[in-house]
């Protein structure tokens, strides 16, 4: 049997002939990065390769790194292995990594969703022999509604709060969800404010040439009256912290795929839960995997065991893979923790400014 083109070792997903890693979780010599979320893009590697639109966020999050960026479809060759990036539709700059060596093709999905969110380049299926897929929401209970419906609900909720003289605080990851929320707001309702962490991310994206709606960064000097009819976009780590007090009275909404389940929503004690995810739902995963026409699937984060069994019963050679992305089951919990970690510093800074 031939050695697999990609393998999972202690450092990350490794390509032996190409001598590079994809999304390593430990410092390595050569790292290809699918996207800039903190569980995929980690500090300490000697050199990085990523999509152009990940550039400024990676600099912002990882500091002075040695980074080369390329566009979608562009090919880079490392030690005879062809590498190209393809849209993953997850967040701005997110990519699937296609690897080709001696006629064999593997694709690492990173994180992805199928629906065009109107903010990032939509997902494109890439044919391959082996597909390494996330399955954060790989359970049939996860079924997303069209995003327009969710955005309408958000706007309607904001409108109602504004009419009642309440501020509207909406929480979502600072990279990805925050832009998606911002770009779909009905700006006629009121002002838009962002938490410092999110504003930093937006500044980075703007340096990258991304056009985003205007929003005001919250500082200790922002007058409280300004929040009355406004919507405030904040990161998950700010939920339940004293930072939120300045918005009183306010209604608090949480934007996440996890909001699909009542229990998860109740745990977060949100007034409103909006089921909006940057990951594929159950149908989305199945559709995406079928579109690759692959024979073998490796499943990284999410409900890997369940999803692997389902795919096996449906004719795939499917395997669970142990990675440090998300969590090994149940998903975003760790990503959330990591995001919270990286954002806490900024949060403190936001408070003291």
């Amino acid at each position, binding site marked *: 049997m031939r050695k697999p083109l990609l393998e999972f070792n202690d450092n990350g997903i490794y390509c032996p002939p190409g001598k590079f890693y994809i999304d390593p979780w430990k410092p390595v010599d050569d790292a290809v990065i699918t996207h800039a979320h903190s569980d995929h893009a980690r500090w300490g590697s000697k050199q990085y390769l990523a999509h152009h639109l990940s550039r400024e966020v990676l600099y912002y999050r990882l500091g002075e790194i040695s980074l080369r960026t390329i566009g979608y479809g562009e090919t880079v060759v490392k030690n005879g292995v062809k590498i190209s990036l393809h849209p993953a539709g997850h967040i701005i700059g997110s990519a699937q990594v296609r690897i080709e060596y001696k006629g064999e093709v593997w694709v690492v999905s990173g994180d992805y969703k199928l629906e065009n969110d109107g903010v990032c380049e939509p997902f494109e299926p890439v044919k391959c022999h082996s597909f390494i897929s996330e399955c954060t929401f790989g359970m*049939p209970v996860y079924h997303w509604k069209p995003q327009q419906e969710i955005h309408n609900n958000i706007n309607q909720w904001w409108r109602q709060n504004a009419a009642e003289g309440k501020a509207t605080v909406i929480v979502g990851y600072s990279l990805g969800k925050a832009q998606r929320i911002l770009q779909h707001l009905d700006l006629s309702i009121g002002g838009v404010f962002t938490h410092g962490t999110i504003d930093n991310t937006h500044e980075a994206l703007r340096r990258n040439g991304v056009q985003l709606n205007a929003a005001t960064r919250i500082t200790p000097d922002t007058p409280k009256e300004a929040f009355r009819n406004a919507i405030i976009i904040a990161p998950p780590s700010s939920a339940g912290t004293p930072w939120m007090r300045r918005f009183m009275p306010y209604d608090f909404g949480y934007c996440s795929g996890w909001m699909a*389940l009542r229990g*998860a929503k*109740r745990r977060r004690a949100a*007034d409103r839960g909006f089921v909006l995810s940057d990951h594929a739902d159950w149908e989305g995963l199945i559709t995406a995997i079928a579109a690759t026409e692959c024979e073998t699937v490796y499943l990284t984060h999410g409900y890997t065991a*369940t999803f692997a069994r389902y795919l096996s019963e449906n004719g795939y050679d499917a395997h669970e893979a142990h990675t440090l992305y998300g969590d090994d089951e149940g998903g975003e*919990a760790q990503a959330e923790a990591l995001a919270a970690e990286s954002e806490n510093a900024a949060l403190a800074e936001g408070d003291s400014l």
Partner: protein
Amino acid sequence: MKAFAQLFADLDETNKTNEKVRILKDYFVAVSDQDKIHTLALFTGRKPKRQINSTLVRTWAMEMAGIPGWLFEESYHVVGDLGETIALLLPGNTSSQDKSLAEWIEEINHLGNLDEEERRTWLRASWASMDQQERFVFNKVLTGSFRVGVSQNLIIKALADLSGLDTATLTHRIMGNWDPLTFSYPQLMQEQDASDDFSRPYPFYLAYAIQETSDQVKSAAQIGETLGDPADWQAEWKWDGIRAQAIRRGESFIWTRGEELATEKFPELHDFLADLPDGTVLDGEAICYSEGHPLPFNVLQTRIGRKNLSKKILAESPMVFIAYDCLEYQGEDTRGLPLTSRRKILEDLQLATRHPEAFMISPVVNFSGWEELYALRMQSREYHAEGFMLKKRSSVYQVGRKRGDWWKWKVDPLSVDAVMVYAQKGHGRRADLYTDYTFAVWDGDKLVPFAKAYSGLTDKEIGQVDHFIKRNTIEKFGPVRTVKPELVFEIGFEGINQSTRHKSGVALRFPRILRWRQDKKMEEADTIESLKAML
């Protein structure tokens, strides 16, 4: 049903009590009286009889969702609620309808007349006509698992605001034996007298714990500061049986605290009840008792779930009623009298009984100061009690859980340090998180499981433990994971008894997690010998 489904969605979308009451009021104003009474019945635990067993409901749901059984089960473990799981798994609706809650309940009640195939057709057609939220509440009603995140108090508050009646009156009116098919909303709102329902119990008066957590043990001085002059207080032992109300109004009725009519479960109490003067209601503890003292709760437990009480069971677990209050005397509601007066009535009733072996009275514990009572409390277990009940002598009998006049002061729990060995996912708020754990202590060099517990950790700790479990699973058996033994917890419990049913040989009463001992290694956990020494 649409309005009822929307009520649920709206209640889910706020955490604020006032807002919930407002939503309930809006709902009650908008729907028919029939829907009102059905809603009230559902929210107070009066659910329609289950007409389709949950295995069939599951089977038909899987069929309609087109997924295999194992995947359905996995989904259920992630969601933690059957009704919600089904609502999420079924394909989108193909039609819609406008049937009211009352109409749906009527259809459900008629299912008894249909054969299995007809029920299947009915259920599939019903699901196909509902959106996700409707299906969710419909499934809850259908499967008889109607537990909701809204307390009865909120419903009563909303109805009281609407009707102008006070909450205590309403709470009393909705107690007892009524059926939404025969009891109407106008009836509920009308002036009533006791003759309406001879079996109706009074709402129980419940006490808060004065020692809120075992972390901060209150001293006698602190208790004294809170309660004031000891002479104002009556102390009774707190018994570990089943809180019950014994009613004699022409007939006898025994209600448990959970509002279950349990008259038939306590045959030993029938004679003394029949002998009470008409129009008497007593509050007390139904408890197993032998040779002059109460028996541990697990003795009671062996008989409580049984339909048929055999001679053997009755002989092994003889039951008595330890009364501590009198709520009605000579047909008059006595709850407004001070405790001292009610106690006098109770004592007179007990003196007059011809069945003192079954009708006992909870003795008043004499004490002159808080220090004395504090010391006595330490001996609770020797008295087969869980601690004290402290009641203000001047207190009236209130409705529901109230602070101030009554307190429970339980003895500190027993505790051991134990190692987590198995974990299972929780339900509801804790769905998809590992929150139910099994603990073990050392038996030589082996760990022997002895208790399951699931409360007592903060959300943050639960998150950390969940993370550990997911990364340290040795084996999976269905929903249960065998976890690498490493984490040590202090497990508290109220009592311990020998058990032949448990591998460890012991059964615990109310085991719970007191704290996570992150400072301890698993080698430092306790042994089975130290547990058995507590027997």
